[in-house]
């Protein structure tokens, strides 16, 4: 149960880091990554990182 960020698609804007309610997203080597152990996929709500990400298909099921 975790989402992941496709590095090639990421613009490194950081919107997802700001919005993640679990602080599971951080910047690593110029792209953002989701720490699988921290991601809850927002417990059934629409995942906030996906909702704010400007690139469709950048954040997907891990």
């Amino acid at each position, binding site marked *: 149960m975790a989402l992941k960020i496709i590095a090639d698609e990421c613009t*490194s804007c950081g919107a997802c880091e700001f919005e993640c309610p679990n602080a599971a997203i951080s910047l690593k080597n110029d792209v953002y990554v989701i720490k699988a152990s921290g991601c809850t996929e927002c417990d059934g709500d629409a995942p906030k990182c996906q909702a704010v990400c400007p690139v469709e298909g950048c954040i997907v099921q891990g």
Partner: protein
Amino acid sequence: MSSNVVPLTSILRSRPVSEAPKAPAGGGCSSSSCGSSDGQGDMPAHIWDKVKDHPCYSEEAHHYFARMHVAVAPACNIQCNYCNRKYDCANESRPGVTSEKLTPEQAARKVAAVAAKVPQLSVLGIAGPGDSMFDWRHTSATFREVSKLMPDLKYCVSTNGLALPDHVDELAEHNIDHVTITINMIDPEIGALIYPWIYFKGKRYTGIEGARILHERQMEGLERLTEKGILTKINSVMIPGINDQHLIEVNKAIKARGAFLHNVMPLISDAAHGTAFGLSGQRGPKPAELKDLQDKLAGGANLMRHCRQCRADAVGMLGEDLSQDFTLDKIPEAPSYDPEPRRLYREVVERERADRNKAVASAEAELAETVEEAPAKLVAICTKGGGRINQHFGHAKEFQVFEVDAKGVRFSGHRKADNYCVGGYGDDDKLDVVLAALEGIETVFVAKIGRCPKDDLKKAGIEAVDQYPFEYIETAIAAWYADRFGNRAETSVIA
């Protein structure tokens, strides 16, 4: 560094201002109707003080002062059909485009480096590349860092408005007294055609629902800024067939809520940019369509006509972009900053301005005397800044366009003719680019022009006027106009 900066040396070392070119005997005039017009006019002193050195808020100031944007706020909370956040190109100059994103500390370093080399710098803005209000942590940290070094800079931000109401009080605390909000509609049904989605309070909203939330937040933010006495500029992207006529309603709505300035900008649309509008073939407006709309808006909120739609990391005078000269690898670790050149420059500008205003006023009076009735004419100017005709035709990457009639000379806009940016290579292509940029204009004023291009222009029905090198734009246009269309023309023929 680009030669398009008003060279400080040219002002400091040239003739004393009292010996600057006099208003030509043929008469002249001026009232550049852009932003805060060409001078204080009937503006209250405290507002004039805020805008007089801000190149975006005062058309007059844009001849003298430079701005810089630092790209510290990449995160955004809405999607616009004219924006693609993945796109970037060092040779592209348009909103949302930047070459490198900066941390607040890097941004402060860059501002100091630019201020040391560009004494014309008067304004620091944060315009994304995302949304400065949504990415408020980065925005506020940057202003905090920079204001330690340079408290005398003017600070401004631009935003889509969605997160704006949350930060109005903090804006006032940071001494940010200029805010630009992009408002493209006041009708959510039209908004739904421009914004596929917005992200608000943890949720994505689409269609009319999303556009309605955005609209309500924009109006709330604008009203609260007006209450606080913070000056607002409203940017509207003119999208033919979608919101072009609707912008008349937008203009009324923002004026009623106290907006200081309305800036209608043409949609930039190209499939190569990968935007939704670019891919769908949505076109941008032609210069004449933009001018028609701007003319219809006269009498509403003050109009800005001198916008260059600059990059999120733009540096320099409005018509130029020095951003590539100040990338992180080119600026020192700890740039030294001496405020003295900037202070000196402001002094010089005050003198130059007073002289220009005097020349322009006497020219205007003479124009009123000599010309009774004549058709309004659009003319193009080659200028490097300073309000003078001081650029060689061959160096012009853009033309400033003025409208002249018996009532005066008014700034009308600018036309880009950048050879590289529009894809041309070599001289032949360049001429085509220039001719396209000068559509509807029969006269271009130049400091100098070669014989071949002069003949080429003539063949295309455009006269190049080189009799007024280095004179003030308004006085030169007025003198020429009085010669052509005034009573003076007849007397001079007889004489």
